[in-house]
């Protein structure tokens, strides 16, 4: 079973490389190098903070684009090209196929984020080497090459796994355009989720408040994955918080992938 899933995952990864998804890393590197030069000209002693903010935000955005735009085509493309028939006649269960697709894209995202994290650290190292006063500037709140940035990258990655799972789920029964719209919609809603938890403060109806609270638990809660500003300001992120948030993200992603397996296994391809 694991071998079959691994084969599908490897195929997804190879396909993303063939589709030149990794080219975005060149764009990312160009953005970081260009920004590191421009920021020094535009701002007052905040170079390191801005480079860290930009590096983390760009990693999250690039990762989001990959998760959404590759994720929504993962299954639909196979159905559209009718290659799904060739796959399903092989000794491969449908849920293994979905699991392999998810893991393949997760691997692509991991490689992307790992390279982007390395690029951010490299730019920071070069900036300090070029201008050593940046590291000792009074305005610096955290070490320039701060290992805590990795915490932000880890949480971005888990957040992207949730988005990938949602995109894959929609991909099992919907067109890429609609899937992308729905996934982006859920991504946005996921950042306003906390409002639903306190809905009883703005409505008097107990039923509406209960419905809102139910939605709070059902919809993905993506805001807790954002610790970018905190790590840039050198604030400690408790290990318990990171573990709970990662655990929530992995469970949520697993649940949505499970739903995607269910939908895909019930689809009639005749």
């Amino acid at each position: 079973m694991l071998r079959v899933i691994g084969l599908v995952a490897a195929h997804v990864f190879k396909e993303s490389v063939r589709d030149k998804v990794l080219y975005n890393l060149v764009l990312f590197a160009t953005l970081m190098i260009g920004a590191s030069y421009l920021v020094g000209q535009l701002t007052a002693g905040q170079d390191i903070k801005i480079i860290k903010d930009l590096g983390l935000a760009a990693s999250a955005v690039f990762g989001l684009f990959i998760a959404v735009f590759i994720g929504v085509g993962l299954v639909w493309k196979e159905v559209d090209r009718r290659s799904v028939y060739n796959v399903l006649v092989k000794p491969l269960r449908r849920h293994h196929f979905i699991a392999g697709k998810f893991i393949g894209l997760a691997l692509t995202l991991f490689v992307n984020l790992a390279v982007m994290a390395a690029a951010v650290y490299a730019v920071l190292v070069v900036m300090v080497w070029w201008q050593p006063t940046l590291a000792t500037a009074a305005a610096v709140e955290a070490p320039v090459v701060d290992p805590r940035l990795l915490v932000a990258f880890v949480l971005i990655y888990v957040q992207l796994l949730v988005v990938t799972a949602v995109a894959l789920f929609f991909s099992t029964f919907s067109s890429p355009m609609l899937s992308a719209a729905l996934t982006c919609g859920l991504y946005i809603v996921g950042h306003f989720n906390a409002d639903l938890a306190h809905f009883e403060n703005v409505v008097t109806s107990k039923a509406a408040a209960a419905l809102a609270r139910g939605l709070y638990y059902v919809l993905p809660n993506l805001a807790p994955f954002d610790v970018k500003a905190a790590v840039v300001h050198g604030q400690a992120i408790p290990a318990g918080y990171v573990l709970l948030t990662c655990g929530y993200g992995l469970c949520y992603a697993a649940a949505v992938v499970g739903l995607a397996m269910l939908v895909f296994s019930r689809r009639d391809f005749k």
Partner: protein
Amino acid sequence: MSARATPSRAEGRPPRRQALVALTVSALFVAGALGLQASRDVYFPLAQPDATMLYVRSGPAASRLALSFGAVIADLYWIRAIQHYGDTRLSTSPTKQYSALYPLLDLATSLDPRFTVAYRFGAIFLAEPFPDGAGRIDLAITLLNKGLAADPTKWQYAQDAGFIHYWWLQDYKAAAHWFDNASRIDGAPWWLRSMAATTLVQGGDRRSSRVLWTQLGETTDDEWVQTNVRLKIAQLDALDEIDRLVVTVTQYQQIAGRFPPSWEAVRALGLIGAVPADPAGAAYRLDPTQPGGVTIAHESTLYPLPSQFVRKAGPPS
């Protein structure tokens, strides 16, 4: 049968010459487009974008719209705030105003509530009297209070609020209150407590002012702040020097029986070695109409001296 995406080896690649022609034609069209755009810009100049325009003015609304990208958008607003401040400060327009400064700082600090530099520099930009700054001490204090609400451990914000009351408002009671508040926050330096006591007892004196400016300079590496600190300390030095020169002028009057017509006359009596110059290099001015009889030259880069420390009464006896 569907068409192939790329030509096969059998079909062959497009000849090199053909590719060269295609590239040349493309380059010509690009050059044409650039030329036409440049011509249009000459005959129909582009409207200057309104630097003070903000699509969103509400901090809470901006932070909601930013999703999880608040910090990086805060950086953009911070850069805009600096550009707006710098452009307006350098502008020679008689109608110039810092109308977008506070909204930009408010947005930056709403999007990133721990943006220390935006609070601290922002308060300096806002408090500086017009035309060098917005002259909005009320907004500077509002910004610092917002910073303290976001992070009550930042004693620097309370120190800055005390500094604004001390230097720009000469409200020494309020300044002492802020310094005392700052000194009670964990991690605050020891001198804030003595600064609170000194300010309350002695009001604004030059020695404590010099300490305040020096401390402010030590909390940042920003060149603009450092230049400002050097200027203010040089002004305080000039005030000390003027006090000493007032004594010399008084001595001259006692000997010669009249106000000295020039520094050369004072030197001729051996009371000074050379024509005295301020820290910026400009000679001090002898002026019998001014209290004390000695003042700074209008041409000096240190002019005008901080009003609260300038001798306000007492002609040279």
